[in-house]
């Protein structure tokens, strides 16, 4: 499939009737909310996604709240609304960093029994129900699609526009038409994504796009335009360090896909405790990917 054909076939606008069309599906559809200190917004999302779904019957076979180290009542709110709350693992105790989005998704993928998982950040103020329903609908309609991305802005936002898309355009031109490779809103087919390498740090999304494309082909990806995202505090993609982690994860995935080769360590993936070396977790000490032309 050419990129142009992909753009024509696998890019969608939200459909108003997508939400009601999800009812009655035999495929198990799970909902995963990645939450850190989201007590203000989580209850609202769970209420609206469970009981405010158009048509009255929500399509979720399970609802998972992957807690990313909250210090407020996020976990309690999740349980009150009947969600399965996944607490952060022991890694937290050994690391100064709180659990990140990638770690939360990895835990959700281990626990989920759903065929399709919709991944949302709980710190969003509002959800575009028609948009996210369309994302799930896309996976239901086409079994070839393994990962559907929610694009909230025409240029994908600053991190996508200034960071990942230029790199993808240069090193993986097939993916240049992905509007928002860093989107935190994903719908994925768990059987296809579970075995892919997943950056446990924040900023795993664009690497997942590359890995999914490498494993399943370009036609395994799709994208849906969403309404602009509104965040409770700020877009987590603008957090300090996020861009760095995103870019390193992306470069790692491009390295795995054979698009770049370097003998140097990109060293971003936070290893699990069993993967630590004798000196503990590896630290990021430098980043050299290209043979920079110093002239």
């Amino acid at each position: 499939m050419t990129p142009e054909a992909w753009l024509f076939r696998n890019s969608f606008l939200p459909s108003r009737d997508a939400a009601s069309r999800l009812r009655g599906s035999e495929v198990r559809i799970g909902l995963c909310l990645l939450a850190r200190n989201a007590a203000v917004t989580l209850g609202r999302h769970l209420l609206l996604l469970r009981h405010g779904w158009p048509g009255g019957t929500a399509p979720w076979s399970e609802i998972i709240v992957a807690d990313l180290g909250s210090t407020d009542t996020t976990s309690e709110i999740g349980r009150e609304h009947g969600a399965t709350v996944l607490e952060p693992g022991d890694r937290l105790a050994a690391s100064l960093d709180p659990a990140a989005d990638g770690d939360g998704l990895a835990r959700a993928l281990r626990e989920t029994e759903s065929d399709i998982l919709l991944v949302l950040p709980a710190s969003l103020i509002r959800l575009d129900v028609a948009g996210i329903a369309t994302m799930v609908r896309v996976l239901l309609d086409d079994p070839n699609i393994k990962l559907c991305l929610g694009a909230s802005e025409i240029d994908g936002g600053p991190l996508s526009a200034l960071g990942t898309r230029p790199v993808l355009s240069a090193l993986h031109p097939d993916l240049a038409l992905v509007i928002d490779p860093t989107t935190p809103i994903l719908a994925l087919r768990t059987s296809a994504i579970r075995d892919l390498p997943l950056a446990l740090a924040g900023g795993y999304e664009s690497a997942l796009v590359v890995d999914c494309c490498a494993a399943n082909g370009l036609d395994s990806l799709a994208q849906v335009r969403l309404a602009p995202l509104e965040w409770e505090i700020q877009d987590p993609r603008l957090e300090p360090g996020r861009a760095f982690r995103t870019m390193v994860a992306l470069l790692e995935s491009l390295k795995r896909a054979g698009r770049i080769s370097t003998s140097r360590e990109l060293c971003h993936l936070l290893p699990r405790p069993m993967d630590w070396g004798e000196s503990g977790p590896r630290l990021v000490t430098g980043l050299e990917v290209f043979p920079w032309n110093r002239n």
Partner: protein
Amino acid sequence: MLSIPEASSRPGFWMGLTLLESDVPRIVAQAVQLAEIPSPTGLEEARAQSVRELLEEALGMARIDQAGNVASVLAGAKGRPGTVVLAPLDSWYESIDHPHIQVRPDRLTGPGIAGQSIALAVLVALARTLRERPVQGLGDIWFVATVGSEMSGDLRGICHLFPWLPTVAERVICLQGPGLGRLDHWSVGTYRGELAIWAPGGHCWRDSGRPNALRLAMEFSAQMEAIHKPGFPRTLYNPAQLESGDAWNTLPSKAVLRFELRSDGEEELQRLIREAQRAAGSLCKGLSGCRAELSQKGFRHATGLYPDHPLVMGTREAQSWAGLVPRLGASSSDASVCLHYGVASVTIGLASVVGLETHMESLYLDSLPVGLRQAYAVLVQVAGRNTPHDT
């Protein structure tokens, strides 16, 4: 109007009530969704569209009329008198682009959630419940969400329903969010006036002898304050808004004073209106270059149902049965127009609310089930009556 024992012995009553009570999470979710659609008076289209979709989903058909009201009907038994249930579409606020409702385990907080949205969600829930679990022997029930119920709308939505409304129903139940146990059977007489004053203007030092439009407006207000207002029937004058002035050193050449006169008694209200007209008429007498114009921006008669009216007594019975302490009162709402046209109507509240008409408006969720129970019982009592004008 049926008594509670009669209503609760109708086949389907308890099944419907059980369904309604189990529907609380959905009602809350829909209230949040509706509250987050900005709907200032005059710009209710988006929320009306959502309510139309919800009513269509509940009853199969709903339409938006020329005024912007959303209406749907649940057909009942032939030969039974009809009933109308009303809820307001418009919000009190005018300038919030993206209202956001906070959902906490015990309450919902945000602009418009308690005032209108919960009433709309309950309106839809009652329709859905009675469609899915019909109660035997009810007449036609019209579910109507009205535009223009706030001050600037001057009840234009409910006014548009006349003279049609009395042809389909003789009883009207108005749902409002705030005030659990509230039973408003009387329409507060209201006159909304706008006094515009023009004066020559000029420099405050050089032209200090000239009339000052702002000062004249304040003089008018002082005259209105000085008028005797009885405590019973309760009567008041409220200066609400004053616009005037151009610069520090100028004499205001124009002033606009918006005020409201309210009274439970029609005679008192009319007396105050005459006093306001007299004060406005004499305000600029003898002042060269000055003019004052008083215009009416809204009016509601002081009228209502007496406490021994069957609708009031039946509603009290339902509230007591639901576990509430009925509080008879008066308000200014869609029911005012119905009462003015001789259609018996009451207004009931659905939940406990604090901070009404502020950005921290909060609705306590534990009060909602009893509010629903009351609304459901009242509706079955009224819609199940055998004759249009029961005793």
